[in-house]
């Protein structure tokens, strides 16, 4: 596995105009977006909000382009291009939030939306018993930022993408034991303009890709079937990711049918307690659910209580809660190169940062927005406010949350070699966790038995289940930087109305001891 350090942040800087400079790759903000009447809309909306007495107002203009291609057995099932363009204005008026959004990019409509936002704040006022105040943030004037990529996927002909996915599907279908092959490519291009009454204005651009292929094998005698999916991460990269920059597609596609054939014939697992060596392609999702969401301060304070839930990592546990073993060091960042939650500035004009969430196994930080940073005395937000579209209000969303590798830590082979009776877990599949982020259950693409330090073939019907603090307390070894991988998801859901966000999680290979393993066939009563 390639070493990709999560704290290898790249340049975020304010520029007077034009292109942003990002790491080793130059990328320009799309001139079609910058030619929109962004500043006229900001002037109209913010001045109207100020006239109506708002103590804070911010405007976001967003253009979200996506292209989603789905293939079924090498034939096109769906190819849809979508563009969303609009703006949202958020105000604080007499200590209450108000928000309004529209799609008509005219100064008149921006001013009307500002008036509606103030009206919404007034409707809410009789029910608001916590005055809204925001933590200070330095003013960032005329800042621009772009994620790094070489080739914008939206510049690649659609027919070329379909041909590539068809070719990859045919490779899978040509293999023995593969009866069906599904392929999917999701591409997103996000442009965002932000302006607030304090004087911050930012223009940003992000590109991200999510490719996925699944092979399916049928057993016509008993009606059973099994699948095997690629483990390639979704990334904040350009089209070059599909042609080999960051992932070895040829190798993974060649191996997929073999892994599937082995899985079909694999014995069913005997439930019980096992030592688990967990690959980053699986552990990223466990980190997401058991650490990423649990260290969101809005959950800890109860703001998500009725929907996504709360957190066992309550605020009174800051700097004292024993989260896991002393080997556990977890960072939050919005800066890692190719990270899906990486930005220059968040949706409250806060510059991207990197910070510790868990140090030596102890909770030391949270993910914040400006209101909660002010409420809880942090002084400054760490830039975790985000809205998934112009029509939604920014809420506290997840940063890239990553487990640090041990600087001189073991290789994957060394971790496996140290296990007498265990299971090696690869690739994410099913996931679920409770309302306070305690009890979780995960499955995987592949489970390999480990006997006397050696891999001993795949197992079927496996799920691992634990309580978060018990699980992380059982962390017995952390792999070195050579085992580190940045993975993630396009589909982190939160909030009401529901919003989705993309987020990355990096981690090394790891060893956990004595984890409860279920047999899912027996759970189903088979």
């Amino acid at each position, binding site marked *: 596995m390639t070493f990709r350090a999560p704290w290898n942040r790249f340049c975020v800087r304010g520029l007077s105009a034009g292109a942003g400079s990002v790491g080793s790759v130059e990328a320009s903000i799309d001139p079609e977006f910058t030619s929109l009447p962004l500043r006229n809309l900001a002037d109209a909306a913010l001045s109207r909000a100020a006239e109506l007495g708002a103590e804070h107002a911010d405007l976001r203009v967003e253009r979200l382009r996506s292209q989603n291609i789905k293939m079924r057995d090498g034939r*096109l099932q*769906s*190819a849809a*291009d*979508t*563009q*969303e*363009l*609009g703006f949202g204005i958020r105000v604080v008026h007499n200590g209450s*939030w*108000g*928000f*309004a959004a529209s*799609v*008509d990019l*005219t100064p008149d409509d921006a001013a009307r939306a500002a008036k509606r936002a103030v009206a*919404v704040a007034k*409707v*809410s006022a009789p*029910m*608001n*018993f*916590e005055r809204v105040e925001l933590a200070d943030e330095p003013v960032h004037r005329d800042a621009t930022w772009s994620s790094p990529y070489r080739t914008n996927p939206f510049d690649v002909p*659609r*027919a070329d993408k379909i041909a590539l996915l068809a070719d990859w599907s045919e490779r899978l279908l040509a293999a023995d034991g593969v*009866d*069906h092959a599904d392929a999917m490519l999701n591409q997103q291009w996000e442009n965002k303009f932000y302006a607030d009454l304090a004087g911050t204005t930012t223009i940003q651009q992000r590109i991200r890709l999510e490719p996925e292929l699944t092979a399916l094998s049928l057993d*016509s*005698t*008993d009606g059973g*079937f099994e699948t095997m999916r690629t483990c390639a991460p979704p990334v904040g990269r350009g089209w070059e990711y599909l042609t080999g920059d960051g992932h070895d597609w040829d190798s993974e596609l060649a191996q997929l049918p073999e892994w599937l054939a082995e899985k079909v014939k694999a014995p069913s697992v005997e439930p019980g307690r096992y030592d688990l060596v967990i690959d980053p392609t699986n552990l990223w999702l466990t980190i997401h659910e058991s650490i990423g969401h649990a260290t969101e301060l809005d959950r800890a304070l*109860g703001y*998500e*209580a*009725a*929907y996504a839930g*709360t957190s*066992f990592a309550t605020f009174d546990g800051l700097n004292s809660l024993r989260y896991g073993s002393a080997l556990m060091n977890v960072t939050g960042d919005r800066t890692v190169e190719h990270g899906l939650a990486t930005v220059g500035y968040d949706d409250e004009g806060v510059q991207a940062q990197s910070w510790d969430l868990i140090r030596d196994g102890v909770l030391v930080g949270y993910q914040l927005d400006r209101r909660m940073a002010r409420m809880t005395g942090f002084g400054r937000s760490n830039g975790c406010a985000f809205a998934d579209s112009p029509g939604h*209000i920014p*809420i506290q969303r997840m940063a890239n949350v990553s487990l640090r590798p041990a600087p001189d830590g073991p290789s994957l082979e060394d971790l496996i070699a140290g296990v007498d009776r265990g299971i090696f877990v690869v690739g994410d599949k*099913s*996931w*679920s966790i*409770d*309302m*306070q982020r*305690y*009890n979780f*259950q995960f*499955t995987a693409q592949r489970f390999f038995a480990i006997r006397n330090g050696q891999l001993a073939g795949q197992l079927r*019907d496996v799920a691992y289940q634990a309580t978060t603090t018990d699980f992380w307390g059982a962390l017995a070894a952390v792999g070195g930087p050579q085992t580190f991988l940045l993975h993630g998801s396009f589909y982190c859901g939160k909030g*009401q*109305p*529901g919003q989705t966000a993309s987020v990355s999680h990096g981690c090394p290979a790891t060893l956990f001891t004595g984890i*409860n393993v279920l047999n*899912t*066939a027996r*759970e*189903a*009563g088979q």
Partner: protein
Amino acid sequence: MTARISPQETVEQALALSKADGCVVLVTEQSEANLRWANNTVTTNGEMRSRRLAVISFVNGGTGMAAGVVEQSSTSLDVLADVVRASEQAAHDAGPADDDAPLVEPRVSDAGAARWGDEAAATSIGVFGSFAPVLGEAFARARAGGRRLFGFAEHIVTSTYLGSSTGLRLRHDQPTGRVELNAKTPEFARSSWAGRVTRDFSDIDVDRLDAEVTTRLGWSQRHIELGAGRYQTIMSPAAVADLIVYQYLATNARDSDEGRTVFSRPGGGSRIGERLTEQPLTMRSDPDEPGLSCSPFLHTSASWPVASVFDNGLPTGPVRWIDNGVLAELPRTRNWAARTGAAPAPIVDNLVLEAPGATATQDELVATTDRGLLLTCLHYVREVDPQTLLLTGLTRDGVYLVEDGEVVGAVNNFRFNESPVSLLRRAAEVGRTERCLPREFSDYFTLTAAPWLRIPDFNMSTVSRGV
């Protein structure tokens, strides 16, 4: 930017611009108002208006019909030609579609043809004019009573206009609304929940909702620790709905015929015609279902196994997916119907599960229970194994212990591993069907009615400390 034009004019202009072999235009106007609260105070809120235009071009490239979809939020006149041309280019790039079928022709009886010329329906923050003050009073009572209220109220009105090169002109207005109220003790150690669906908020009684969550919070004053195991369990309509909606959306005719779902038959084909349960349960959909009415025609801007862009405008109607305990039908596109010699079965946006003559209420089911659990609702339901449709998830906001016909306290939450198909087979008693809010699907599938179900051996796999 030019001024926007009406949805109907947008449809006509786009169709007039089309040079493709066929074209479908969808325009969606949506308005939304919402209030969110936590710790007895409003947190976020908003009033949003949006508009989407989807142009679906169909091009015969010689080897078969191709479809290209371009969708965007602007419908101004100056972008219309670009969107139409882009969708045509997308169709040319795409190659033959896997779900090719002739475009739907208009029928005299099309239910969506009426009121084509009407303006789009809309909502605003004013929909909460009566609701909000009463909610504020509930906050005051909660503060005085040592409770904390959390929740969300949302009202969305969506007007959909569909036009096609074959002459379809269909329109549908869909109001959807919901309220969720969650009460907790200050230390968050106990929690209760109630949810309602509504079309216009005129039928929402906040005081009654508040009384309901307060009563249930009272039930939990006595806490009882129970271990993992299989328990006799009374499932609420909300919990049942969450599982059957999952089943409805996860199974379709094509995937089943191809061997990919729990309804695949060994040796090929689907299990249609097979008895799933001895209970006289019927699972059905009907766009004219009273209180749950939904679009009388299919509209989609993307093809997936249960709906095809070629089927846009296809009338939906009453359909029995499970008929008196027997699997009777699965959602099926016209393309797959033609390839398998079966009839099309367009998916419908509502779902009812019921048994004739089943009238038992929660109180009646509790009264006839010696020892068992009463579930409020579920959380984080995900598929573990598609072969059995094994789902996992958590119980949430109230698992109550029933002994000798009475609720005697609240127990800890559990992680469950269960399949809705298996639960229907094992159901020992079916109660009254009630309109309910499936909490896990509350963002996008709320038009449901489900019964109370008694399961003799619900699999509570492990204990959850979460509240």
